């Protein structure tokens, strides 16, 4: 589904990604871990097409298409979804109106007719229950006055509504208390299926107790320095990142 080859990127002339290689297939759950400033969130920004990131080398193939040639909105329409670490507030625009606009933009792109209001509301209700999203928040302005947890849960609700092929969760667990974390994880687990892939970016192993990954990658200094299974996450939890950093530096000095 997604193939990242030797991806280099910079922001404001500063090198952030230094040769990422990653293959994600349908149905897989990948966790990206790593210390602060290792490039985890930059990777998600580059994949989603944030403007101030410049790709200097490498390629990204998403469902047979060269992802880097597509505009951010076309990447989304092709089925790439980013659950933001810091979801923005848009005053005066209702959550539902926004979602309907987004859904219909995506449908139009795929030559599908826009959803009738009735069908849309039916879908809304179904997904809201599926991911246990507070129905009162649906008619409120998009994220305006939402608590941190509500914003994150709204991201998962949107993910359920837009039904992408690949969902990137950028530190969706940050700022959540344990109850909210469980609800968010349960929502994500319900959305897992054989056709959908996930890339979960997180600092902590905690989230991975609830969302069990098939692969764990450690990003450090703009590169994936280690790949393993969920046991790797446990090892990191126990030992921290320092041993990995040392390993990398030893290799470099050889």
């Amino acid at each position, binding site marked *: 589904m997604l193939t990242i080859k030797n991806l280099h990127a910079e922001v404001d002339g500063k090198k952030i990604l230094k040769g990422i290689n990653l293959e994600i297939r349908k149905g897989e759950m990948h966790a990206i871990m790593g210390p602060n400033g290792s490039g985890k969130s930059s990777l998600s920004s580059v994949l989603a097409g944030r403007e101030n990131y410049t790709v200097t080398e490498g390629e990204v193939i998403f469902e047979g298409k060269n992802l880097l040639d597509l505009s951010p909105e076309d990447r989304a329409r092709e089925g790439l979804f980013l659950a933001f670490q810091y979801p923005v507030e848009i005053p005066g*625009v209702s959550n539902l109106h926004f979602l309907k606009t987004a859904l219909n933009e995506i449908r139009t792109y795929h030559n599908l007719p826009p959803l009738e209001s009735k069908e849309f509301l039916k879908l809304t209700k179904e997904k809201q229950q599926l991911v246990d999203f507070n129905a009162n928040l649906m008619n409120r302005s998009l994220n305006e006055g939402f608590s941190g947890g509500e914003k994150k849960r709204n991201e998962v609700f949107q993910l359920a509504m837009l039904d992408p092929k690949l969902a990137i969760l950028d530190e969706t667990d940050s700022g959540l208390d344990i109850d909210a974390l469980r609800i968010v994880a349960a929502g994500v687990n319900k959305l897992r299926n054989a056709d959908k892939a996930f890339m979960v970016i997180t600092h902590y192993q905690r989230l991975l107790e609830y969302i069990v990954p098939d692969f764990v990658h450690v990003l450090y200094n703009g590169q994936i320095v280690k790949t393993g299974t969920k046991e790797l996450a446990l090892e990191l939890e126990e030992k921290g990142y320092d041993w990995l950093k040392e390993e990398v530096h030893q290799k470099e000095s050889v």
Partner: protein
Amino acid sequence: MRNSNEIIDDIANREYEFGFTTDIEMEMAPVGLNEDTIRFISAKKEEPEWMLEWRLKGFQAFKKMQFPKWQHFEMPELDLQKLSYYAAPKKKKQLGSLDEVDPELLATFEKLGIPINEQKALAGVAVDVVFDSVSVATTFKAKLQELGIIFCSFGEAVRNHPDLVKKYLGTVVPHSDNIFAALNAAVFSDGSFVYIPKGVRCPMELSTYFRINAENTGQFERTLIIADDNSYVSYLEGCTAPRRDENQLHAAVVELVAMDHAEIKYSTVQNWYPGDKDGNGGIYNFVTKRGICKGKSSKISWTQVETGSAITWKYPSVILQGDDAEGEFYSVAVTRNRQIADTGTKIYHLGRNTRSRIISKGISAGFSDNTYRGLVQVGPRAANARNFTQCDSLLIGDRCGAHTFPYIESRNSTATVEHEATTSKIGEDQIFYLNQRGIETEKAVALIVNGYAQEVLNQLPMEFAVEARKLLSITLEGSVG
């Protein structure tokens, strides 16, 4: 035969497009401004002597006045001698319904797309159409007449309801109020007149549609609305003008009078031609709008969505004379390219327990300048007066300007006056967020702007709100990027 409902329905169905002109034989006054011009207009309109006298008084006042200098923009050179002050479709016959209107003219309205939502039952809308200077048709007159409501062109009111006109004309905006109001008093061409009798709630939105068509003309319409005790009326006004290289002057006057417990809601969607991207051409929209809450517990509410005109310069105001009276001003002003807006409101609290609320949303893009200027004045008798003002500015790009000049003068210590102001930019983060959900940048901006203006748009009658939303989106197309 199609009835006028269907025609309006049709008109409303069409795309918004305003840059065309209509070839209709026009009757024009000779170019220039002098007493003869005024006599010519008055004679053309077969006015009684008192009306001519009033015009001449206005002209005398005008001659003594200078253009103001306090505005926040460079005053363009206006040669008022080069304008023609009267232009009317050549047609003498009295028009009863839209069916009788020149088909060319109707075709124009079709292209204009009168801002009414066609899906709504149009039985609820009465339209008075002012084409250049003459009101060509007023629909639904008969139905309104049954309730004793008078809704007609100003000219007709002068002929058929002289006592009402004489009683109220110039009582809110005197003939010598300011130079443009004086000019209007002298040369006003036509406009609308509304009278709602005691105890009557007008069952439909009254609507006027203005259009400047002819070259080298100014449009000087005059609107007078009187809501008698315990009555209610909602009035809508929409405007467009064709694309022309030279500037055209629009100096209208609107007077509102609300008696005891009466309420007037006045909504404007202004989309006059704004000029090209370099600032050539466009309408100078210099308008005086003022209402007086004369009676106790009366209410006047202005809502405006201003997207057009090269320069928009106006302050729809409310004088809260009656005790417990209430005034409101809701405004969205959008400027782009080289457009200028210097707009806001003035609220005069004279009566006790009077309340006012001002919500202004300025949106500037391109090289434009958007100014909010507002005055809240509390008189010595206005015990417990309350005002709340919020004025927000939204900037798109970094070459435009937003300015706020709030004036507060309180002469009563029991009054409460609140002022809040914010300035924000459409964030790249907001746009990227929407992009990431499959929404392209242009739509994203439209969504953000509509959300920003929501509080004001909510004040508009439903069918107008739909149009205004579309207009906001269209206006800002190409402003980002």
